């Protein structure tokens, strides 16, 4: 079965913050929020409840956000948010409860103005390398700069295991027997 994949036409982007927001001070990106609703129609009842109960508290908590109310007859309720970098968000709140509207408002408050796109990478850094990016000439014996190839020292394989000859020599040295008149003579 096909898994849920993000459609290629829906766009993709890298992780970014407008003007490196959050690196120093965090600035709320929401500029203005517009509540459009109908004063009588039942679909706007949730939004009307929200405006009665929580809107003033929201406006007080976010002094940098301009709140607009647009009562329009025979229109379904919606939220429109505009952000500092020019991005916009539109959410319809038709037939939604006061709780839902509260959650959507909170969602819009915390968004940056960038559109919702698939993230190509989940990390971003302006300083990918501290000690400097790799190049093929670091960690290399400086001998290669002046060497005339082929060079024996650079070509010889690293010794990992002792060969039998070396082991026998070592054992012999441990025993410390005299060289001549001992083992190396034929026994008649």
């Amino acid at each position, binding site marked *: 079965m096909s898994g849920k994949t993000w459609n290629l036409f829906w766009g993709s982007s890298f992780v970014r913050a407008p003007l490196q927001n959050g690196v120093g001070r965090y600035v709320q990106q929401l500029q203005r929020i517009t509540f459009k609703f109908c004063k009588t129609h039942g679909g706007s009842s949730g939004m009307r409840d929200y405006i009665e109960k929580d809107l003033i508290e929201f406006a007080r908590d976010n002094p940098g956000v301009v709140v607009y109310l647009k009562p329009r007859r025979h229109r379904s309720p919606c939220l429109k948010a505009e952000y500092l970098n020019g991005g916009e968000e539109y959410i319809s709140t038709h037939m939604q409860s006061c709780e839902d509207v509260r959650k959507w408002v909170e969602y819009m408050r915390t968004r940056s103005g960038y559109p919702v796109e698939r993230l190509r990478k989940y990390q971003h850094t302006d300083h990918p390398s501290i000690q400097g990016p790799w190049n093929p000439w670091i960690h290399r014996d400086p001998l290669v700069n002046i060497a005339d190839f*082929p060079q024996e020292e650079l070509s010889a*394989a690293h010794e990992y295991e002792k060969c039998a000859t070396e082991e026998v020599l070592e054992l*012999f040295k441990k025993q410390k027997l005299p060289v001549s008149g001992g083992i190396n003579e034929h026994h008649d």
Partner: protein
Amino acid sequence: MSAAKRVQQWATFGRMWYLYDAKWQNPFHSAEKIKKYLSGRSKPIYHPLSDCGDHVVVINSQDIALPGIEWEKRVYFHHTGYAKGASWTLAWELHQIDPTMILRKAVYNTLDKNLLRRGQMARLHIFPNEKVPDKILENISAQMRQVRQVPKRLDHYPEEEVVNFPKIFDWPKEHVIQ
């Protein structure tokens, strides 16, 4: 890309030319090592699409050492595509015809079987002896270590070392070696 970043890019993605001495080496083990450098897997910036493979110049390919009895038993099959075009060539025969072929086939067969293989083989330069064209010699920037230690001949050891080696056993004087 700014001028400074451009130079950094050239440095990071610079192509290296490695030299490998195949004297006394097993071509199949050598091929595994050469494959890493041809594909670019020896680099931390490796990616299959970023064309980061290096050049490898192999010398002394006529002096490779196949294990065991492979010189007599290893068979290279070739079919021309035409009728009665099958041929079976033993390793020693192939080596006589073209001393670079065994190593070339070994590397070709160990490389990943994808479209990048032909390009990586084009970056492999094999020479039967130490005679390398000057243009290629100029490019060489580093040398790869051999896979196997080159065995030392008995007559290349200093004489006193040979004489003083602790003999564990020797034939008695009357013994006639047949």
